[in-house]
């Protein structure tokens, strides 16, 4: 394994600094004792973290986003797992078309999906409702779960099923005892990626969420539109820390590189 030459290594670490700089900035700024964002600053304080506790609307938005993400991820998983298994393990007419349809949200810009869903939900009288928002999020994260389920199922050795059948196991038992357990890591990884994508989603939610169903990213965006203040930085830092923890869990369960590598 040959090392990269030094100029390339220097480039690499510069690149790493570039990638981390904004996040580091956010974390640093959150510790300011001033009432506005200034860098550098002299006094540090936890005041902006305490301020989170005094901002019930942010806390509400946080829990709402969390619940929404969990709900959307779960619904998406319930729909994607059977579809993913069917697609990976069967040849049937229309398979390619169905796969394309199920992955289609990836092709549509979120801003376009946002206005389309706003229009649609208004037509059916569900605009501004939580379940409309949930449906929207489910649809957007479904492709992520599907991709991982298909990948996990495709790598599955069918001769295991044949062995089980030769030993007398029937369809449902084969599914429950052989197939499902072996694709569970893929399913779990898919759920987590779906969760993260739903939690972070901004653009489409701007259109579909209403004042009463505001998600955290939407709330933060609207806040920025008025003023960039350190409260956003402390909220952001909390999110960064939570994401880091989630990344560790994701890595243990499934392997971070597999999940992120499958993102393209």
């Amino acid at each position, binding site marked *: 394994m040959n090392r990269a030459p030094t100029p390339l290594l220097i480039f690499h670490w510069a690149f790493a600094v570039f990638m981390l700089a904004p996040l580091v900035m956010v974390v640093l700024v959150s510790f300011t004792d001033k009432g506005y964002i200034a860098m550098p600053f002299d006094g540090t304080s936890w005041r902006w973290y305490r301020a989170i506790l005094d901002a019930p609307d942010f806390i509400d938005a946080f829990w709402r986003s969390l619940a929404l993400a969990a709900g959307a991820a779960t619904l998406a998983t319930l729909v994607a797992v059977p579809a993913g298994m069917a697609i990976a393990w069967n040849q049937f007419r229309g398979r390619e078309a169905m796969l394309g349809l199920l992955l289609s949200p990836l092709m549509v810009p979120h*801003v376009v999906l946002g206005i389309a869903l706003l229009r649609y939900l208004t037509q059916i009288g569900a605009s501004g409702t939580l379940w409309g928002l949930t449906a929207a999020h489910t649809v957007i994260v479904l492709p992520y779960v599907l991709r991982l389920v298909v990948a996990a199922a495709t790598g599955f050795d069918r001769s295991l099923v044949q062995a089980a059948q030769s030993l007398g196991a029937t369809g449902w038992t084969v599914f429950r005892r052989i197939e499902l357990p072996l694709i569970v890591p893929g399913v779990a990884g898919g759920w987590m990626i779906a969760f993260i994508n739903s939690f972070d989603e901004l653009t489409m939610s701007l259109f579909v969420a209403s004042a009463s169903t505001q998600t955290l990213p939407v709330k933060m965006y609207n806040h920025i539109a008025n003023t960039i203040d350190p409260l956003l*930085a402390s909220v952001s830092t909390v999110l960064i820390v939570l994401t880091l923890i989630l990344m560790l869990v994701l890595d243990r369960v499934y392997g971070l590189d597999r999940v992120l*590598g499958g993102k393209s």
Partner: protein
Amino acid sequence: MIAQRNVLPYWLTAPGVLVMLAFVVLPLVLTLSLSLYPFLPGGTIGDSMTIANYADVARDEYFHVIFLRTFGMAFMVTFICIAIGVPEAYVLSRLSARWRAVSMVIVLGPLLISVVVRTLGWAVLLGNEGVINKILMAGGLVEAPVKMMFTFTGVVVALVHVLVPFMVVAVWTSLQKLDPTIEQAAESLGAGLPTVLRRIVFPQVIPGVLSGGLIVFSLAASAFATPAIIGGRRLKVVPTTIYDEFLGNLNWPLGATLAVVLVVLVLAISLGANRLIERKFKQVFV
């Protein structure tokens, strides 16, 4: 794979298909139809179909500028992402396993964090009172703060940060498929490292560059949060204009029209670039 006549796969995929039809296909079709209705003064939507909205967009200089700016931004972001993403993917493939794992987290981790947070960080860096300017002034490199917020350049830089991980992943996937002895063969025939990279490695990863480039381009052209926050009110791109028309002016038909035009243009450019590159480098696309 079992080729079978049974109906089970259809039952299993049915929920997904229904959900997609109901919440993606139908809404998009409705949007298309929405764009074909006029927006009447007074704020309502007319009754008869017309292509007036499209005509407006085609005629109005105001929209031309916005589209040009959007696509100019997208091309520039794509180009920069290729220029720095390809070498980065190469270095990643050459690192030892431990450093590679760390680097992957650094490069790909930001994808898991909301774009609002990342863009907030850029706002702190790029402002007149921001870190970059403080460093430049302290180092005596400039006398007055360099304006980066609310500029085209600022948006490009922030968009590159948001989108370059996609390029790195696409190129890295391509690199994984390479046979390392091929580089050794080139070396044994007298090629130094720059030549090996240029003549042997890069041509073979062109499919990855193309795939990554298309993703970055399409995401850059339809990006909302970053141009909105970093670019501000005055530096409009198509997605922020759609937002203004839809939620600001409540001119839904115009918003829908802009959305349709955006999607069509992105699709056309993507297909065109795809065909062009595949034709020019066909021996690389196995």
